[in-house]
């Protein structure tokens, strides 16, 4: 999303999404389908629950000794002939990658889907440096041609119709008569991208996992683009958040057993690729250089912060699919790289709590995300803490703070509260409809714009209770 779009308040972005009929329908179909497939996959897999607990424990154990496992990873990657770089900020990461591009004479870079490179806005930096970045995941490719941003972690282009994709290909690829047929559209993309894979100098990937004691980076894809970009170009650069390290191959197998099931309901994704450094001298193919960029970008500070648990995240997308808010507004409305309930936490981690002062409330705290999460991340707990933080830092609007303080005080004084009820009944008369208040005047209007308030009852519970007690006697 562009800076200009981010300048529009979250409410307006969400409002726009709610009015987009196609987006609404696509979101419902996609998220419902993912949910069904996920339920089926775990339904056939009785050991799933135990493995989720195991996976959660592995993540926590790894964080407890993150320094140790990262050191091990670095040593082993270097032993296998790779280079490791350390990036504290997105700017560091971009500079590291641009340096490699410059030194190796890179003119074109093919990318397989990676949230980490989205997070550091790598494509813009590459373009500015004269390197053409080409997204190769079909969904990402469509988004790149359209100059848009992904709307779902797993299905980045679910907001586009096949007709829109056909028009886009006709226009951007100069192809006449493109039919709105997914099969044909996929074949066109295959042909276009095959050329790019063969021409590109550099392959850029993220990493789903990195195995510390094997110095191995693990990529999971369904299309095969992850294999292409790590096989054909001369240089392979993998960008990875520090939290993606896992201790051993035994641990890796636990995550593989649950990742695809949570994401798409597959038992395994089509391709799981374990990369152990650059081409070996006795092998025909593979890159001459392998670089691993370890990215901090706010993660390390959360090892000791309220968002630590969010560092367990596998980016499977399950919490998006079950989230009633995400299902209604889609990924774009969140406005940052990572959408959905976990996206709010990751955005706070990357950009600070102030960046989510609206988003922190874009959740009903229903708990569906925590139930769906393969590593059982307690997202609602962290959202509440984030809301508290936002309020303590006085990031919430002053009117909201004044009213909430008043209400809190009233609740602590039962005598006053009893007095307040009849008063409120008089004042709410012009605003209440069918037992609900949908619009309030003045600064209260902001709050009720996106919320309904139950009207104060004709008789409050304590009034009825008192009456009942009298009758009972």
């Amino acid at each position, binding site marked *: 999303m562009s800076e200009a779009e981010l300048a529009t308040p979250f409410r307006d972005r969400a409002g726009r999404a709610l009015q987009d009929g196609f987006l609404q329908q696509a979101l419902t*179909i*996609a998220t419902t389908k993912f949910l069904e497939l996920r339920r089926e996959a775990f339904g056939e897999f009785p050991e799933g629950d135990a493995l989720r607990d195991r996976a959660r*424990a*592995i993540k*926590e154990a*790894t964080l*407890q000794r993150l*320094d140790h496992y990262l*050191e091990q990873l*670095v040593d082993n990657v270097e032993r296998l002939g790779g280079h*490791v770089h*350390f*990036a*504290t900020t997105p700017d*560091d990461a971009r500079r590291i990658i641009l340096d490699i591009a410059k030194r190796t004479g890179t003119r074109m870079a093919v990318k397989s889907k990676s949230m980490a490179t989205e997070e550091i806005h790598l494509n813009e930096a590459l373009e500015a440096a004269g390197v053409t970045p080409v997204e190769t995941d079909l969904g990402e490719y*469509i988004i790149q041609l359209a100059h848009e941003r992904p709307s779902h972690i797993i299905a980045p*282009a*679910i907001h586009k119709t*096949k007709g829109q994709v056909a028009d886009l290909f006709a226009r951007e690829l100069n192809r006449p008569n493109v039919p709105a047929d*997914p099969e044909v559209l*996929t074949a066109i*993309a*295959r042909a276009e*991208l*095959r050329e790019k*894979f*063969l021409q590109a100098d550099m392959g850029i990937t993220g990493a789903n996992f990195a195995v510390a004691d094997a110095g191995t980076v693990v990529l999971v894809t*369904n*299309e*095969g683009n992850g*294999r*292409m970009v790590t*096989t054909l170009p001369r240089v392979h650069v993998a960008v990875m958040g520090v939290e993606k390290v896992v201790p*051993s*191959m*035994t*641990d*890796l197998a*636990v995550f*593989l057993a649950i990742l695809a099931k949570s994401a798409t309901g*597959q*038992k395994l*994704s*089509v*391709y*799981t*690729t*374990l*990369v*152990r450094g650059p*081409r070996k001298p*006795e092998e*025909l*193919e*593979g890159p001459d250089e392998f670089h691993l960029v*370890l990215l*901090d970008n706010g993660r390390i500070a959360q*090892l*000791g912060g309220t968002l*630590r648990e969010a560092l367990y995240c596998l980016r499977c997308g399950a919490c998006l699919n079950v989230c009633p808010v995400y299902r209604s507004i889609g990924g774009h409305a969140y406005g940052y790289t990572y959408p959905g309930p976990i996206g709010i936490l990751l955005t706070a981690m990357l950009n600070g709590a102030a960046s989510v002062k609206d988003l922190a409330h874009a959740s009903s705290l229903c708990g569906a995300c925590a139930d769906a999460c393969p590593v059982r991340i307690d997202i609602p707990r962290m959202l509440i803490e984030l809301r508290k933080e936002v309020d303590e830092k006085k990031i919430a609007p002053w009117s909201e703070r004044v009213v909430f303080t008043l209400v809190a005080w009233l609740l602590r004084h039962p005598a006053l509260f009893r007095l307040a009820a009849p008063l409120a009944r008089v004042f709410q008369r012009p605003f209440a409809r069918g037992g609900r208040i949908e619009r309030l005047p003045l600064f209260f209007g902001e709050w009720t714009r996106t919320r309904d308030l139950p009207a104060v009852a004709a008789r409050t519970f304590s009034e009825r209770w008192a009456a009942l007690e009298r009758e009972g006697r």
Partner: protein
Amino acid sequence: MSTRAEFLRRIRAELARTPALFPATPSLRPAHPREVADTIRRELSERWPATLQRFQQEFERVGGVLHRVATVQEVPSVVGRLARERDARDVLTWHPSALGFDPARGLADEKLTCRTMPEAVPDAAARRALRDTIATTPLGLTGVDVALAETGTMILRSGPGRPRSTSLLPATHVAVFDRTALVESLAQVAVLLEAWHADEASGAVINFITGPSRTADIELTLTRGVHGPKDVHAIFVERPLRE
């Protein structure tokens, strides 16, 4: 730009002020993975028919096609039929040392040109030429290191004579294996992975392949062959290849 030392120092500082969220340990790894792997293989060799059945069921579920032949001599005729159905005249193959048998004669009898991958690495120019060959040949014939029944997955290690793109660039991938490749579960695969990585000589890449390349990125319509092969076939040979 940060250095390794600075990075680790900050991590240690954060960890020092954070108690664990709960007590946790990573998975217990086998102390001698090679011995455990051998034991697993031995046990599995006694119940391979059931494992093959499960593999077939899962492999077909993800869109693979399994062929079963008695001996390795029958492999070329299956490949020949698949090639004719696709109007293919050329077949890429792993080097015989990697495949466990030499299909060249048999493929020639099927009127197919066999492009065998070299075992030794040629010079840069020859490597470029080979890459063009791999990229334009319609069918790739490979071996399989592990056939994982639980998920219908074929696991292939790269190495001399077994370039990784033979199972990636051709539109059709045909893989040959016997009972010794079959394992039941991901947990067993974990032991094999532990054993392999202890082995310094192993190749730069290990690929798990679970059916044909696929996408659902346009209106969630499942489409095959987006970047990798559209067709994936497995040929199971009843008599072990390396007898």
